[in-house]
């Protein structure tokens, strides 16, 4: 099957399959680089030798186990989540510019998280530690649903309406965040400042644990949406004619985007453009077939975010830039490039 499929011109599935393994190799390399980079000067080789010999310096062990490894794990999770939710959202909206960060879904998630921080005390205790994640998830889900309802008329999603509605949603969320900021006390204000920046600096195993239950299922189950999103590329009516359960696909796609975006925002604040850059690069390289686009996006998203994190830590060392600034500097030009080369990306 593989050999024959590869003989057909225009069939890019072999290329996409090979790319997946190259990306995995890249992820391993970036992981080693990331663990070896940081203010404390612990190198990977020293740490590995110490660990093998059983005499790892307790201070180094602390740096690696409590700071760098959770940061790496969180970076991979968030990068994968942002890239996959971007790819799923673009498939759902049939548009390569639909990124959760751009169209207000990230803002909705932030609003949910800010609500949880400021009004968290009023919520029942059982929601407790997962309040911020849950509220961010609800905010992301609600804003995706609202956006889809506003921008889609009789099966056609208008990109102009989508982007403008995204601006409105973002403005509304910013205003509500403003209200919350006004109401917040000093401790809450410190927590809130963190949302505006987008950072992996506070990474801990607890945050990794809070993100996993929402992000991992969304990433692992997203390939189940692949066939549906491929069909949706032809429009809702055509997808239905091909036997796809369109309403169920849309609902699952919205849930996946909400889970991945919500959890990302909850633990790391707003990190933009990964969701738009990664799927776009992959479509250029190996085509828009979501059966490969989604898994490849997960890995490339992890690679790029961890690389951006390394840059964020090195550029002003020993201090560090919020990673959201790095991704925006790298991502915004790509967004403009997509706009300017619209020929290849269909009806915008």
């Amino acid at each position, binding site marked *: *099957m593989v050999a*024959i*499929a590869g003989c*057909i*011109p*225009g*069939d*890019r599935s072999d290329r996409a399959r090979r790319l997946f393994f190259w990306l995995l190799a890249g992820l391993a390399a970036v992981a080693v680089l990331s663990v070896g980079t940081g203010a404390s000067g612990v190198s990977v080789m020293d740490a590995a030798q110490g660990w093998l010999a059983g005499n790892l310096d307790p201070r180094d062990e602390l740096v690696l186990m409590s700071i760098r490894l959770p940061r790496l794990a969180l970076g991979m999770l968030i990068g994968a989540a942002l890239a996959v939710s971007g790819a799923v959202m673009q*498939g759902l909206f*049939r*548009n*390569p510019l639909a990124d959760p960060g751009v169209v207000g879904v990230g803002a909705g998630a932030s609003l949910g998280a800010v609500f949880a921080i400021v009004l968290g005390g009023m919520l029942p205790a059982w929601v407790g530690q997962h309040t911020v994640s849950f509220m961010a998830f609800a905010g992301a889900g609600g804003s995706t649903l609202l956006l889809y309802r506003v921008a889609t008329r009789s099966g056609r999603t208008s990109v102009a309406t989508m982007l403008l509605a995204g601006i409105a949603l973002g403005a509304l969320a910013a205003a509500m965040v403003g209200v919350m900021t006004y109401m917040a006390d000093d401790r809450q204000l410190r927590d809130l400042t963190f949302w505006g920046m987008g950072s992996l600096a506070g990474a801990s195993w607890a945050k990794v644990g809070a993100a996993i239950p929402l992000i991992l299922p969304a990433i692992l189950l997203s390939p189940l949406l*692949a*066939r549906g999103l*491929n*069909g*949706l*590329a*032809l*429009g809702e*009516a*055509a997808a*239905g*004619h*091909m*036997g*796809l*359960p*369109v309403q169920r696909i849309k609902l699952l796609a919205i849930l996946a985007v909400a889970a991945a975006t919500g959890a990302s925002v909850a633990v790391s604040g707003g990190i933009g453009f990964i969701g738009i850059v990664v799927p776009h690069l992959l*479509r250029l390289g190996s*085509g*828009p*077939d979501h*059966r490969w686009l989604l898994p490849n996006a997960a890995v490339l998203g992890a690679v790029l975010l961890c690389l951006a994190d390394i840059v964020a830590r090195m550029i002003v060392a020993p201090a560090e830039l919020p990673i959201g600034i790095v991704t925006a500097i790298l991502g915004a030009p790509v967004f403009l490039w997509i706009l300017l080369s619209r*020929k*290849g*990306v*269909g*009806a915008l």
Partner: protein
Amino acid sequence: MILHGVSFDARPGHLTAIVGPNGSGKTTLMRAITAETPFDGHVAMNGTDIASAKPWQLAAIRAVLPQATPLAFPFTVIEVVRLGLGSGISAARGHLAQQALARVGLQGYEGRMYQDLSGGEQQRAQLARVLAQVWEPVLDGQPRWLLLDEPVSSLDIGHQLIVMQIARDFADAGGGVVAVMHDLNLTAMFADRVALLAEGRMVAQGTPAGVLTDANLSCAYRCRVRVNTPPDAGTWLVPHAASV
């Protein structure tokens, strides 16, 4: 357009054309048959009520070619055709996509980007996708259906004939074809049965010779139309400039 009291039937082995002026309800009738639009009444396909059938059950017995299909992402032509095959492409089905492309005259176009094709080529690539979905006109003793909404609207004369011949062959092989048509001459050449709509009502339904008459067409299209039957074969329709 709202349809009133329309009863329509199409048979396997036949190419049934739905004709009528703009706004007569042709596309609305097609959308009812494809379950795209809500309707009061009853639509059955191979004896199955389409309102209670699952999308995949319908997809197994009929494929639909819409008037225009904008594509969201940069797929190659072969990837577009394969969308019609669903997931889990086997080797044989992989070749089926190429066969379908050859059938519509697009062999050698596999690796081209869909967006770079002309409108007519895109329409034929979409027809290949639709053909791939119901490649065998009869499967397990059940006829399958091609539902075509203005399949030749963006094609030149040569390609109009190619596409109509593909539809004709599908019907001759035992499948059913329902096509919304604007071109009455092509309808007269290729259809076995014709349904003529005007203002949401069925004006006439039957053989082309019985439906495509001066009186029926002049009434439906609100202009004078004369049907000529040359001695060798076929039918020519000549609209007159003067209004009724």
